[in-house]
């Protein structure tokens, strides 16, 4: 049992955190949000140059073979910077599908561009009117003339509008299938929107659009198993991102408590506010522990992985809400102005809870699994 980072991991964490702090200050983020795409190609290229996009991919695919802990460190830094660039959409979600399901030929066609930051991918899975945060979909894929015909509608596709390639989940008759879809192909229509957290989302409609047999990832029934794994990895990544956003929020708030004067003293001298700051710290540390647990559980036994990830997601949902709400409250009116970072961190933390199962969803999952601790 050991929670120390290796020297390499420490260096990775420090380098990435410093890089994002230096190159992605809050005004740059705001500028990126106002651009056509809602994010910065330049900032994303910077992550690519540091080798971060290739981190989880195998060395033979042009990656670095990084694991859950390395991903945690990067996502925490991204969370601190509130980066809206498509790292999560492309590397974690879509990239996860490629790593766990795609053939060598499919990977060879996509991963080099992805690692270079030139190829943007998005995972199109969620649908309206269907049990959320589950693997169920209504979108269909019919086998036609050596390929597949896709019909359906997807919502909340993160970075869908900027994607060059979509990975679409659909029922195949033999189970859930995952398909590589050129975002500009005929039969694909994409309508973009801005998420309240700044991260663009899109609705995607597929109308009789056809893909070749080589678009299928794995076999026609592999989708569930692949997404099950990818979603748990993505939840672990979100937990780490939430820790970064909470840590940044907490630091800014404590700083504010020390500098903001009222009634002739720093407001941090008031016990009511001190105790609330300590409560924020506790939530941050509990979340950090769970982000670590989630990262370390990814390679482990499946039942334990599911319990630990669900517990981590439930914890950060609660903690993110507490930290975000308290930070805004303690800043007073400053906390609700759009030009101040804390409010944006609050919004990202809120969005993270909503993604891939909120607190209640995961508590219900845990209840169904008989709890966090497997029965002895």
């Amino acid at each position, binding site marked *: *049992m*050991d*929670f*120390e*980072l290796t020297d390499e*991991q420490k260096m990775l964490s420090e380098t990435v955190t410093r890089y994002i702090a230096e190159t992605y200050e809050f005004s740059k983020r705001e500028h990126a949000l106002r651009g056509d795409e809602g994010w910065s190609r330049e900032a994303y290229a910077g992550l690519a140059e540091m080798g971060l996009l290739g981190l989880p991919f195998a060395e033979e695919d042009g990656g670095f073979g990084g694991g859950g*802990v390395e991903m945690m460190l990067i996502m925490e830094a991204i969370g601190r910077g509130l980066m809206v660039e498509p790292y999560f959409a492309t590397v974690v979600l879509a990239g996860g599908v490629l790593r766990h399901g795609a053939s060598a030929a499919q990977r060879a066609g996509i991963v080099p561009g992805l690692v270079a930051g030139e190829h943007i991918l998005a995972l199109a899975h969620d649908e309206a009117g269907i049990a959320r945060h589950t693997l169920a979909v209504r979108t269909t894929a019919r086998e036609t003339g050596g390929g597949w015909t896709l019909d359906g509608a997807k919502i909340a596709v993160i970075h869908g509008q900027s994607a060059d390639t979509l990975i679409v989940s659909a029922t195949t008759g033999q189970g859930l299938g995952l398909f590589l879809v050129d975002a500009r192909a005929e039969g694909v229509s994409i309508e973009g929107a801005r998420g309240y957290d700044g991260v663009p989302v899109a609705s995607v409609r597929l109308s009789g659009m056809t893909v070749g047999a080589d678009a299928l990832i794995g076999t026609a029934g592999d989708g569930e198993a692949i997404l099950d794994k990818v979603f748990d990895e993505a939840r672990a990544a979100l937990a780490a991102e939430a820790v970064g956003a909470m840590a940044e929020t907490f630091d800014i708030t*404590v700083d504010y*408590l*020390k500098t903001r004067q009222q009634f002739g003293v720093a407001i*941090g*001298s008031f*016990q009511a*506010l*001190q*105790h609330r*700051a*300590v*409560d924020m*710290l*506790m939530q*941050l*540390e*509990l*979340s*950090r*522990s*769970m982000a*670590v*647990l989630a*990262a*370390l*559980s990814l390679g482990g036994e499946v039942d334990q992985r599911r319990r*630990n990830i669900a*517990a981590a997601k*439930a*914890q950060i949902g609660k903690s993110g809400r507490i930290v975000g709400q308290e930070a805004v409250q303690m800043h007073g009116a400053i906390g609700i102005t759009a030009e101040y970072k804390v409010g944006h961190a609050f919004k990202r933390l809120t969005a993270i809870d909503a993604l891939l199962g909120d607190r209640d969803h995961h*508590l*219900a999952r*845990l*209840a*169904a699994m008989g*709890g*966090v*601790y497997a*029965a*002895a």
Partner: protein
Amino acid sequence: MNLDFTPEEIAFRDEVRAFFREALPDDLRRKMIDREHLEKDDTVRWQRILNARGWAVTHWPVQYGGQAWTPAQRYIFQEEMALAHAPEGSPFNVNMIGPVLCRFGTDEQKARFLAATANLDIWWCQGFSEPGAGSDLASLKTSAVRDGDHYVLNGQKIWTTQAQHADWMFGLFRTDNSGRKQQGISFLLLDMGTPGITVRPIETIDGGHDANEVFFDDVRVPVANLVGEEGKGWDVAKHLLGSERSGIARIGLSKERLSQLRSLERRLADDGTLTTAEQQRLAFKLAEVEVELRALELTQLRVVSADAHGGGANAAASILKVKGTEMQQRMTELVLELAGPAGLATAAHGAPGDPDQGWIAAAAPFYFTMRKVSIFGGSNEIQKNIIAKTMLGL
């Protein structure tokens, strides 16, 4: 990073587990499971069993009977002790006065007290709290006035846990009124049989008697019983209150309670006491509390790991006391909810053939008595003040 214990740690855990299984007397285990109040003799008997194995005072320096265990070993030992339903030894002997004497005691005091303290031949109580002082411990007033080779004590202590059993008291007394209130406090050891000491019981809301008032009326204590320097008792007390970090959140206790909670839940679901809707709500609540326990457990392990790497104080350690006590209280609250109206009758301890009966009967007293854990040892509010000041710089 690695979540697993090493093979050596697992072997250690198995050794500890086997010891608790064999060495803990059945009647004591039963009392612990049923949350019955332990008699003085129960605690003495068990501490002597532990001491014979060399495990009563494991975090003392080795020369005084401690074990040179790693933080992980200490954590494992604590967790296994709780999971085995084994009582802890007397905290006043093991965690408080023992380490203080190891550090500040004279050679004479060490020779006289340490072995007897480890073996619970001397039962200690702690005389810190006073009426009107509360969390503002340094405002204590009970005076110790020097008279030749003696101090003469006058005043009153309160909330003195188990003073009715105690052979000796260690306490803080005011030897000087002139400077800052933290100065002028001295740390003294006194024989409870000394003339002028009166112990009066305080009944608490759980119906039990642990707490007492202790009155001092011209009580003469030899100057040789001063620990550390006169007027420097505050430093000694601070050392005493600096808790052991490896077990501070008491995860093992909460885990043990959780498993009893789960078994009680199954039983009440099976016999029809709980409706389906109640079962569902309860399963959700249990998941909630387990998530927090898991988060706290990992936080505790992070601190254990940091200690093993020579890490000093970190933010994670500070949350353990506050969250750990909140968690223990939450467990007792859930048990009481689960017991429902059956928990109203509190006298049905150890009903034969019904393993859960004692547990249900103890639900209410246990819930009420556990309200104290967030009050004693520096209330959780005081803990937050300390964290705000020392860690956040507020």
